[in-house]
């Protein structure tokens, strides 16, 4: 290798830098945290999908994952805990030209914000929801979440979680989401493709990303970052179109990944326009 090549290898910028608020990098995520990978996949998907990035918005709730909105160089909104989806709903309905992507955590979207999730899915609001499921509340120091596996240890389940976690794709499917997929951060390429498909789906799309939280979840469950990714490799089963009832997160049994729902149906604004706007009336005004 020549000296010149060696110099080039020590780069200072990255192909995604145009989508990053580089002045805010390094981000707050811990070494080995899966959020960065999920976020990166999301940015690549946005870029490759060819959507108009000037009209693309990221909305996050609160949590480590919820910091996503703070690093993307797009119009980006970091809202309140659990409320990214209703905020995004208002945004999309007020200006249907916007592509609205919600990037947030499992606690945010499914515990405090669970009600909003099911209603947005039912309405088929044309937004894409990317959920980083790290099986716990990372930001607050690793408490049990609605996604913590049975018997897993967290600061609030010191002897193991007595409860059972949500099967998120099943929930999304049952609530009416028109696109549902699950991948892990190890499957970053499939994940990127799934987010691209989700962006293309004209309705409510949900992508679950299983991700390591080495600092708060991994540490208490004897998983180093690489162990979690090896678990994702060894114990995952890729099965597109698997029935949503088969999708519990049970690492003993194996966890199914893939695209499970891809059934476009009229989205909320199409249905509103058709039902509520009588023919003679003017077109929907896009807010100035």
């Amino acid at each position: 290798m020549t000296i010149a090549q060696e110099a080039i290898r020590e780069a200072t910028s990255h192909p995604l830098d145009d989508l990053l608020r580089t002045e805010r990098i390094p981000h707050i995520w811990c070494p080995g945290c899966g959020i960065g990978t999920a976020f990166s996949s999301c940015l690549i998907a946005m870029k490759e999908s060819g959507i108009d990035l000037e009209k693309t918005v990221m909305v996050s709730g609160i949590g480590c994952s919820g910091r996503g909105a703070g690093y993307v160089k797009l119009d980006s909104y970091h809202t309140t805990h659990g409320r990214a989806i209703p905020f995004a709903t208002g945004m999309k309905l007020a200006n249907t030209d916007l592509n609205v992507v919600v990037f947030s955590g499992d606690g945010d979207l499914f515990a405090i914000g669970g009600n909003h999730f099911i209603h947005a899915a039912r309405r088929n609001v044309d937004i894409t929801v990317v959920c980083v499921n790290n099986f716990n509340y990372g930001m607050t120091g690793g408490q049990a979440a609605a996604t913590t596996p049975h018997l897993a240890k967290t600061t609030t389940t010191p002897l193991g979680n007595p409860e059972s976690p949500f099967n998120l794709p099943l929930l999304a499917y049952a609530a009416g989401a028109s696109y549902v997929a699950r991948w892990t951060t190890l499957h970053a390429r499939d994940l990127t493709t799934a987010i691209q498909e989700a962006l293309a789906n004209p309705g409510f799309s949900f992508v679950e990303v299983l991700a390591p939280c080495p600092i708060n979840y991994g540490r208490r469950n004897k998983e180093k970052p690489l162990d979690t990714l090896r678990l994702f490799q060894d114990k995952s089963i890729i099965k597109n179109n698997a029935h949503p009832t088969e999708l519990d997160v049970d690492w003993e049994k194996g966890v199914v990944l893939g695209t499970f729902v891809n059934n476009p149906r009229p989205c909320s604004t199409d249905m509103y326009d058709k039902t509520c706007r009588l023919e003679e009336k003017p077109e929907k005004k896009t807010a100035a």
Partner: protein
Amino acid sequence: MALWRVPLDAEQIDVTLGIVHIIKERCKGCGYCIEFCPKEVLEFSKEFNQKGYHPPRVKKPDDCVNCHYCEIICPEFAIYSIEAEQEQANP
């Protein structure tokens, strides 16, 4: 070599040669790129960056197939690959 290295990406990718670029100061040393590169191109370097992590270094430059997997899994936007010829065309 672990079994999983084979199915991950290798066969979908056109075999071209790549040159890996590392933004050492962004690296937090998680080792994902090193562990999951299908061609074992990378290894931890001995040096520390300013944050105190060991960034990866290129161990086998000629083996990189430009699959971009390191680029996509890196949580820190710290590594990427570029096709070798392209690199020569626009340095």
